[in-house]
């Protein structure tokens, strides 16, 4: 499994460079002044950075999990991905029930996602 090569370069080197570049983008996104972009989209800079960070974090997550942790393409990776994903359901419950239910969480989240109060 360690001898696979993709696009001529060795898979691990490629993955390594990919991750480095993505992290660099993240740092740049935060450092750079994004006000002009924010005006164009009508929200302030913080929300933009949040979206950029999440968009970049997801591929990094997948790249590490799939390639470095052999969750893809090996003969035993099928079932191991299942085990890795098994707690996803429980994590989702924890995040929904505990993370987002602060009584006076006046947040911009759409109402369907954040449980409201009965005008109590």
């Amino acid at each position, binding site marked *: 499994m360690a001898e696979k090569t993709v696009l001529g370069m060795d898979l691990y080197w490629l993955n390594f460079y990919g991750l480095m570049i993505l992290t660099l983008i993240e740092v740049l996104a935060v450092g750079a002044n994004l006000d002009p972009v924010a005006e164009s989209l009508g929200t302030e800079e913080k929300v933009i950075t949040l979206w950029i960070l999440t968009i970049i974090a997801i591929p990094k997550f997948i790249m590490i999990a799939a390639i470095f942790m052999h969750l893809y393409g090996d003969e035993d990776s099928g079932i191991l991905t*299942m085990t890795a994903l098994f707690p996803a*359901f429980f994590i989702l*419950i924890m995040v929904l029930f505990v993370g987002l239910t602060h009584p006076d969480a006046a947040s911009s989240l759409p109402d369907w996602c954040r449980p409201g109060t009965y005008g109590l």
Partner: protein
Amino acid sequence: MRSRTKGAVIALVAVTAMLAIPSAQSLPGGIAGVQQAGCNCHGAVPSDSVVPSLEGLPESYNYSETYDITVSFEGGPSQEGNVNQGGFHLWASKGSLAVNDATAQLYNENEVGHTEAGNDQVSWTLTWTAPATDTNVDFILHVNSVNGNADGAGGGTSGDMWNKLAITLGGPVEVLDEADPFVVLGVLIIVTATLLAFTLVFVFYRKDPEAFDWDNFAPWLADWLTTTDHKKIGTLYFIAGLFFLGVGGIMAMIIRIQLAVPGNDFLTQEQYNQFFTLHGTTMIFLAAMPMINGFANWMIPLQLGAADLALPRINAMSFWLQPFAALLIFTGVFSGHGADTGWTGYAPYSVSEGAHYGTTMWAAGQIMLVASSTLTGINFLTTMAVMRAPGMGWMQMPLFSWSILVANVMLFLSIPAFGVGLIQVYLDRVIGTAFYDIAAGGDPLLWSHLFWYFGHPEVYVVILPSFGIISEVLATSSRRSVFGYRSMVYALAGIGVVAFIVYGHHMFTSGMSPTLRFVTMLTTMLVAVPTGIKIFNWLMTMHGGSLVYRTHTLWALGFLITFTLGGISGMFFPSIAMDTHLHESYFVVAHFHYVLVGGTVFGFFAGIYYWWPKATGKMLSEKLGVLHFLTAFVSYNALFWPMHRLGVWGMTRRHHTYFVTTEEALGSLPMEAAGWNMFITVSGFIFFFSNFIMVFNMIVSSVRGEDAPDDPWGGWSFEWMTSSPPPDHTLYKLDDGSWGLPTLKDANEHIANEPGWLSSWFQRLMVEDEDKGDKGEVTH
């Protein structure tokens, strides 16, 4: 051998040291410092050349009589002419002191000391009025004789001497000191511990009477302490579990004494809080969970046909984390500062100064339990996932293994939430982080969320193994295979999943956001369905079978009755309207004791009677077993059923006392509640002592019981194939008489050795098909 005994000695020293540190640390300066604030500032050591005396006190006082008493002393460096000769400080535990001249001053009703003016004399006069009730009064007098070098040499106190005098005065009627409940608890625990040690030595003696001396006791003991064999660890878990079941039982009895009569003062409020906290924690974490691990450690490798658990050394470690965790949880109890936050330990109180110091230890101890449970969870899941006997697909595992599997999945996915919550409370209390600091915006609901996210799966983890045991016991004793094996497995999995989305019903009235309450109301309604399926399946198993009445069958039927009652009484809570009325009342206490004691403990008793012959090779006596069942079952129902009524009347949980409405005074409960409470206390004691019949039965059977055959009850699963007790390295008698790991044959002709439904689904989903070729289709 030398190094091993040295290791054991060091370990003993370490353990005793650990024992000493907490109690020394959490006994804040001793009780003496508070009442006897005598000014022993003159010189460190009381010297007997100063003789204090207290005249004017009668042999025994009569009610609210006033007495003139004179305090005086002789000896020591004081002489007539000095600027000041001496001082005194008198403390009286009851009654009220009074001063009749300027030479003495009154700090408060029971403390008097000398004044500036009265500093240059050797005797002072005061009056004391006796209390109006029968009690023992303690007087503690401090006197110091001063050499008068007030000029400041050594702060004016060098060379002075002081002494102390203590007198106890009884009232007209002799009053016994009421027993301090902690002393009662301590004595009882030490008695049970010595009993345990005695049985340990006795068992060693019985093993081989000639070799009964120290140098083969040490290796035998060391072998037990350092074993990694799943059977020995199972037995260790059992001993720990039963011991703490006894300790938790003792606490329950003391609580019941306190609640027997309205307005009782056997336990003060603070002590009661500690008792119900530790009763809850001990019973769930130190009695039920180890017993589950005991059953699982013993039976899973045997039932799966595996030699031992996947990670034996981690198995040993996760056991040894528990007794030391128990040590930590109990720190501070005997010095009156144990944890008093309830087993749930709600946030703002558990991190406030009001909570006792013991709460930190309670949290630290439970973090260790979290670690131990996670390790056990990993161990069992890996064993079941990878080490099953050939031919045993997922759908061919005995139901007990399935129940342990689902229980452990739930346990080790939910317990980190509890661990994180505990670490937060621990850090808040120790280094002042502000997780639950209200002023800094900390949110108390975060703790209840984290706790109950773990709490509810935890109570299912405690009940599921009993489901497994009952499925095994009922099937074997009615000579039938379990009805609806597949629906039982799906019901187990159903409970496993639903348990996580249902925990909100513990917080219906706790200010949680209403939408969440509504969602958990619907899901809690759902949780009754899988449990209902299981009960109906058990009943159907008995259909057409031929029930053989052994003790374990009696216990299984007892389980069915009490658990169904508990389940039905549990149905009252999902609807928020009902729960607002019943929350935190004794109705809740009745429900969970029905499900916990009636369900889990009855299931464990059934399991003990069922697997005892396999584990020890000796049969238990049926007569004693039936006697134990009858007394326990009757007293159990008499104990917990009236609690439903008390709950509806409005008796609140965690109140150290209650008051009934009499003609003249309005109380919170109707008149009959007092009668019912006394009835509950009496039946509680009967239930407590009925369990000793089982202990006696165990001892008798291991000494004189007749040998047990390999398969006394005619069960089918693998554990009945080995000899009882199974050989050290678990080996199975194969049908050709040789020993080795068994392969499971399957009576259901159509799914013989092809992947079960679940695994074929996995294969189709995950791995490309090019090399899989034929895949047997599953026909029903």
